[in-house]
């Protein structure tokens, strides 16, 4: 990969996380470059979500530095003019939608918070985002509790994309979706990444998604990260990685 000259969007150095007395991350280093889609995989409980939470500042690591766009990513009490929070969007596993607001209001939260747009323009942009993520128009006035799991994810993605972020975090975006929806989701991520030049950090278990949507993959094994393309990782001797990519599901998804 000719990644030497590319801009580093997420920079993790020496990250150590301890949860409940258990060492989860042992001095992790990671660079995510602008415009790439990085998939993060690992066994259950290997700390994928903790890594994501650490990067977006929801979890203060025991040790190590994390920079997003060259800035400290932890939530500020006072929001600077050009804060990283405005430049990224996060899709949580269950969508993380505000249950007391309709889908449209959910999508408009970042717009209302960061811009002085008229309600009219916000409504237009909401409609645009809804159709981008493939939600029908009438879902705009629904409450999250009235949506199915897949629709919640789409609505969550629409909210994450509302303020046109440069960086998108996805936590298990295709988990719980039917294969058709999952394929559409992969395509959507690819499309958006191409058209908006997004950088995407995606925690996923879906091998199809990994193959279809990601440029590089970071594998969390033994509290360390191994980063590479699928082909590079398949040559890795680590038994977990071998099992992951060369097990029955891995072979089916990767077509070997």
């Amino acid at each position: 990969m000719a990644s030497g000259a590319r801009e580093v969007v997420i920079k993790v150095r020496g990250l150590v996380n301890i949860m409940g007395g258990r060492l989860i991350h042992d001095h992790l280093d990671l660079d995510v470059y602008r415009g790439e889609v990085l998939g993060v995989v690992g066994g259950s409980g290997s700390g994928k979500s903790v890594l994501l939470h650490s990067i977006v500042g929801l979890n203060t690591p025991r040790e190590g530095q994390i920079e997003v766009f060259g800035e400290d990513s932890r939530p500020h009490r006072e929001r600077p003019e050009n804060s990283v929070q405005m430049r990224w969007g996060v899709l949580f596993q269950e969508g993380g939608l505000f249950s007391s607001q309709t889908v449209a209001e959910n999508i408009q939260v970042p717009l209302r918070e960061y811009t002085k747009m008229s309600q009219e323009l916000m409504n237009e942009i909401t409609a645009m985002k809804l159709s981008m993520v493939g939600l029908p128009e009438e879902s705009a006035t629904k409450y999250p509790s009235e949506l199915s799991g897949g629709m919640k994810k789409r609505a969550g993605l629409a909210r994450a994309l509302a303020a046109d972020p440069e960086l998108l975090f996805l936590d298990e975006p295709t988990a719980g979706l039917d294969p058709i929806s999952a394929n559409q989701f992969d395509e959507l991520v690819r499309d958006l990444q191409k058209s908006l030049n997004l950088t995407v950090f995606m925690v996923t278990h879906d091998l199809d998604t990994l193959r279809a949507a990601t440029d590089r993959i970071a594998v969390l094994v033994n509290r360390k990260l191994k980063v590479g393309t699928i082909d590079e990782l398949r040559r890795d001797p680590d038994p977990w990685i071998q099992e992951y990519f060369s097990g029955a599901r891995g072979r089916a998804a990767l077509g070997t």
Partner: protein
Amino acid sequence: MTDIQDFGTSKSGAGFRVESLDGVTRLVAEGNWTVRVAARLDADLRALDLGRPPEVAIDGRAITKLDSAGAWLIIRTRRDLETHGVRVTDVRLPDLYAPLIHTIEQEHKAPPVEVPRDRGLIRILENLGEGTIDALRQGYRMLGYLGRFAIELLEAIFQPRGNLRLAALFTQIEEIGINALPIVGLLAFLIGIVMAYQGADQLRRFSAEIFTINLLGVGILRELGGLVTAIIVAGRSGSAFTAQIGTMKVNDEIDALQTIGINTFDVLVLPRVLGLIIALPLLTFYADVMGMIGGAVMCYFDLGITAPAFMRQLHDAISLNTFWVGIIKAPVFAAVIGLVGCFEGLQVERNAASVGKLTTRSVVESVFLVIVLDAGFSIIFSILGI
């Protein structure tokens, strides 16, 4: 002939200008067309009046940065012009943004989303109707719930087949009763102090300070001990019932119980309500004792009545009935608090907001019912002459 109208291009990075050159109107956009300046661009574009030229070309080659909000503004402007009968001859943007425009154009044809605003008489009528139907439905469900509870309870007592979960029952008694001892004791003690102090103050005018003890005995044993305990327990345990059961409902735990074949009433409702019915009279007794101790302490410091004198006067002032009248109400209050708490918990919908809403409702309803019942008891006892 050249005519140039300038919108923000010179002031800041982003903007557009309108050039009319030899009958061709060109909309020239430049700078960073992003979400941050979209509000200003939107206002300028909406206010723009091109004076109905036959043809317009949109030139965005000078745009340095475009995101979906900016792209939408350009697409919308073109559509607006076209719907007003203006022919848009050419839209030019840097090649870099072709996929973005394509994505939006292809996917998005729908009209803007309307966020409905509630207003007007019709809305009020709608709310009234919805409220009435909700209340009726709630009453219907409550009736069903009471019937179910009665059946389950009678079955548990007369045809026991292990449907009364003793472990759960004792856990509930510990949680409702033992864990509430500090707060109930402290509050009852303080109420004893306050009543003795205020009573002594008033009765001193008639040189009848000694009757402070009568006031304490009747007031706390008959009314306040039970009432205060019931209200604390409603706030402490009634709310916890609703929140626990409600959260289980949000997490599909109730559905899981049912599919495993466990009677949700047996595991969730019966232990809680029965635990409360057992614990609340005991708590009330404890509150009575603490209240009397508080009163005795105050009588000693304020009136110089020693403990033996206090006991003698108390013995004369109250009969056993006074005590029983207070205690007999406790199981009834307990049943109401427990039933309301569990009922509201089962009414929770699958969202977090609903847990909070129904928890509040459960506390308000049970405190309300406790006070209403207490008034009812007063009337019944006075008719019976107790």
